Structure formats: structure tokens, C-alpha cells
């Protein structure tokens, strides 16, 4: 199967910030690909370049076989995007937003109404479709935005934090729909998210990027396996990390004031030794490694001063004050 997206040394520099640094990624047709990374890692910038709204400083990419520099029009015709920043029109109704989108993307008149009804139903906005968007809640705007991205059935869909600010029910529905789109339409989906659970559930492959560079790229399963075992968390009186390191199968030890986190292969068999090595244990928790552990282990624990773009709530506040 061919590649839906290929980047070649794709680079974007903003004055002295290397937002995207010689990125080489191949995304297969029909794949759900996750782009993860801390705030300011360069996810949105990468997507903006692939959508042809930002010009790379260096390098290029192809989307659906079209070069983003030489054939931007062809690229645009074949993609859909849900921006990280809300971009639905406040002063129109939900339905009007969709009708305009359908016209811009040349959705044939004969199926327009049907498609619009379908996506409205999917995101649960049927009953509010004729209200002005300025009367929507933050989550409702997000849902409308998603509906819009899906409306013209693009071959490649970019979702920049699609479920930011959505309630668990809606998130679940959206996940199912994303999966269904990818399966039944062979749609390629590139998704960024800060919810590891979402990435784990949806993505066939994940790239963790930081400071514009790929740190690691693999399937969620392989990434979790590479952590090297289960996570064992002990609530305990201060303990000597060296004693844990001697135990077979323990690959990582993190000791804090009153708890210890160990990464342990075959944790069940090692539990006795671990308990013997600790102080007075109050509680033990064993869980399989999650993508969160993967993410933290590759990108570190500290929060960067870089804050990236504001959350949806601030954005909506801003929109309101601006109008």
C-alpha cells in the first residue's frame, strides 16, 4: 500500500526557534497516525505545513502524492482539517457553517443535505443546528468543527487535538467515528493529542516529537513494551534505591519522599524481593505500562516554560471579547 504522506527533511524555523527540525515521516494510506509531544513540540506547525497554510523553511512533503510546494491546490482538495484553534463562524448558525463548507469543498448539491444531516447527527448537534454558534458551549463548537472536517469525506484528515474539552460520552462517539472512517473509507488520519489514552486507543502508529525532532516512532504496543515491564508503585517509608536496582528484572527506579516507582519485568515473580527491599510498605499498586509512562520517559517530567497555544476556554473568552 502506498504512502498517504511523506515528509522530506521538512523544516520550519521561526526567527531563532526551530519549530520543526528536518522531519522525515512516512504515513501509510489508511493509517491512523498519532503525533505526540509536549507543548511547543512542533505538532501544529507540522500540520500547518502539510495543509499548505504555512510554507516550510526547508524540505518538502507529499500529501496524497501531491507536493505541498508545487501542487498546493491538489493537496487542499484532498484533505480535511480540524484546527487546534476554534475556527467556526460565530455569527452563523451551525448548519450555515456546514453549508458554506460544503460549497467551498464542492460537495455535490445532491448529497449535501444528507451529508450535513449525517455529521450533525454524529456530533449530536441536530437540535441546535439552527442556533447561532455564538450561543454554543465550548464543547459544542468543537463538535461542530469536527463535523465540518468530516463533511467532505477527505482522503487525509488532520485532527489537531480533536477532543480537547469534550465530555467523555462525546469523546467516545468521536473515537468510534474516527475508527469507522479509517476502516470503511480507508481515510488516513493524522492526529495530535495530549490524551495518551486517546492515542493508545486510536493510533496504529505514534511518533513522539520534541523540539521539532522525532524522538521515537512505533506502534503503541511496541512503545509500551519498550518501557521494560510493569509499573510497581509502593507507598513506603524512605528506601535505598540501590537495593531495588539489584533485583533482577528491575530496569528503572524512581524514589521520592514517601513512594517508589519501579519498572519491573515479570513483576508478579519479583514482588517478594521488592517488598523485602522496601521499608514499611503501606500500599502496593501494580499496573501495566501505559502510554503516559512512555511519554514521560521520552520527554521528561518537568513542565517547559514554553506554554504553546492557549486552551479552548481562553480562546472562546477571547473570541467573545473581540466581537
Amino acid at each position, binding site marked *: 500500500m502506498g504512502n498517504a504522506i511523506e515528509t522530506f527533511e521538512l523544516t520550519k524555523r521561526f526567527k531563532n526557534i526551530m519549530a520543526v527540525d528536518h522531519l522525515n515521516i512516512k504515513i501509510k494510506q489508511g493509517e491512523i497516525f498519532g503525533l505526540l509531544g509536549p507543548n511547543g513540540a512542533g505538532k501544529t506547525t507540522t500540520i500547518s505545513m502539510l*495543509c*499548505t*497554510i504555512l510554507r516550510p523553511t526547508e524540505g518538502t512533503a507529499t500529501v496524497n502524492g501531491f507536493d505541498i510546494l508545487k501542487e498546493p*491546490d491538489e493537496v*487542499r*482538495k484532498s484533505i480535511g*482539517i480540524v*484546527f487546534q*484553534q*476554534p*475556527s*467556526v*463562524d*460565530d*455569527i*452563523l448558525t451551525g448548519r*450555515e457553517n456546514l*453549508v*458554506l*463548507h460544503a*460549497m*467551498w*469543498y*464542492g460537495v455535490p448539491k445532491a448529497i449535501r443535505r444528507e451529508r450535513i444531516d449525517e455529521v450533525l447527527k454524529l456530533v449530536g448537534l441536530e437540535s441546535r443546528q439552527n442556533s*447561532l454558534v455564538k450561543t454554543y458551549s465550548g464543547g459544542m463548537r468543537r463538535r461542530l468543527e469536527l463535523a*465540518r472536517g468530516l463533511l467532505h469525506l477527505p482522503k487525509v484528515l488532520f485532527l489537531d487535538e480533536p477532543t480537547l474539552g469534550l465530555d467523555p460520552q462525546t469523546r467516545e462517539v468521536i473515537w468510534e467515528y474516527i475508527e469507522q472512517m479509517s476502516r470503511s473509507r480507508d481515510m488516513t488520519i493524522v492526529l495530535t493529542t495530549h490524551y495518551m489514552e486517546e492515542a493508545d486507543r486510536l493510533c496504529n502508529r505514534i511518533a513522539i516529537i520534541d523540539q521539532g525532532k522525532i524522538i521515537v516512532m512505533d506502534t503503541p504496543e511496541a512503545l509500551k513494551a519498550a518501557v521494560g515491564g510493569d509499573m510497581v508503585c509502593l507507598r513506603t517509608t524512605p528506601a535505598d534505591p540501590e537495593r531495588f536496582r539489584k533485583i533482577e528484572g528491575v530496569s528503572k527506579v524512581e524514589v521520592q519522599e514517601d513512594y517508589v516507582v519501579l519498572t519491573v519485568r515479570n513483576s508478579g515473580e519479583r514482588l517478594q524481593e521488592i517488598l523485602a527491599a522496601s521499608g514499611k510498605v503501606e500500599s502496593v499498586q501494580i499496573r501495566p505500562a501505559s502510554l503516559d509512562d512512555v511519554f514521560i520517559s521520552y520527554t521528561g517530567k518537568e513542565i517547559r516554560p514554553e506554554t504553546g497555544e492557549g486552551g479552548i476556554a481562553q480562546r472562546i473568552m*477571547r*473570541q467573545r471579547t*473581540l*466581537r
Partner: protein
Amino acid sequence: MRQAEAVYALWFREFKVFTRERSRIVTSIFTPLLWIFVFGGGLGSTVNIEGINYQVYIYPGIVAMSVLFSSVFYGVYIIWDRKIDILKEVLVAPLSRYSVFVGKVLGGCTDSMIQAIVMLLISFAVGVYLSPLSFLLAILILFLLSLSLVSTGLIIGSLMESPEGFNMVVSFLVFPLFFFSGALYPLNNLPMWLSAITYMDPVTYGVDGLRTATIGVSQFPLHIDLAVLAVFAAVMFTMGTKTFERMK
């Protein structure tokens, strides 16, 4: 065909915004009314120009002014669209920049022309009676004027980052265009320097043509007015499409 529908969609959006934000039309009609009835009415009680009551004399000039202001200031909305991120949705769509520009221009011209029509309909209140033919001629002149000025406003809007910057640049443009256009005074007895500038102001020809159409006095023959306006519109429109192609 696709692009035609897209242009229609762009225009439709602008039109909806216009009809939903009624404050826009109210404020843009209020100022011209002050000019006509307070300024024109006040001076008109003692002043006549070329045998015409001053209030009547400035009426066409004020109609042109209302189109001038609303057309150029329409450009600011593109800055807001960018600021609240709704422009991005349009720019990422498979539309040519030409279509985007045409859609925006048509939206702006519609706003201005609705105001223009309201202004023309109140002509009887100042004692100007328009025949259907002169009404249509006035509409044609105002459309050419608005086409060029909406293009001008959009060019400035697409180049500026903040509404404050836009307002500053536009103030330096709009007020001179207005005051040098002869909207408030006749052109035939001006000092050399002033006369030279008024001849260079394209709005002058809009005001002059409108005087021909509404009150039957003028400085230039009608065909000159129309020709200058058409050239001005063509130039600004072309520059606008070029600017949009390079935008962002």
C-alpha cells in the same frame, strides 16, 4: 462552476453577517444624515451655491461619502476574521485566492450598495427628485466607486495585522479622499494647488458624476467621470487580486 458556487458562499457569509449585525448599517447611515440635515440644513438656511440650496448641493457628495467610508472600512473585517481564526478555514479550502477576493469584494459592495440605496431613497427629504433613469445612473456610479474602494480597503486589511493599525492608515487615506473630492464645495473656483489635488482624487469623479445624475450640475462631462471611475475600479480590483494571491 465550483469556484462560482464558492464565491457565492463567500458572499452569502458576508451578507449574513451584515444583516445580523444591524448596528453596522445604523451607524453608517447616521453620520451622513447628520451631514445632510444638520451641516447641510444649517448652512443651507443662508448659503446657496450656483443658485442651488447648500443642503441640496452637498447631498450627492454626502451619498458618495457614505459609500466611501463604508467601503474602505469594510477592509477591517478581514483583520478580525484573521484574529478570531475564521479566515484560516477559508484559506485552507480548495479555493483560488481570486475567488476569495471576489467573494469578499462582492460582500463589501453589497453592504455599501444597500446603504447607498437607503441614502438615495431619502433624496425626496432634501427636495431632490430622482427619475428612474437618474436613480439607475447614480447606482452605477456608486457601484464603480464602491468596487474600487472596497478593493482598496481589502488590500490594506490583508496587509495589516491589527485593527488599530488599519484604522490609522485608513484615516490618513479616507479623510483626504473625502475633503479633496469636492463633496462639500464646487470645483470651479478653487486656488490652483487645491484644484490640482482634487483632480487627482478619484472620488472627485464619483461626486461629480453623482451631481450630474441627481441635481444636474457638474464640472466634468459624464463620460469622463465614468471612464475615470472604471479605470480606478479596474486598477484597484487587479491590485487586490494580486495582493490576495500573495497574502499570508
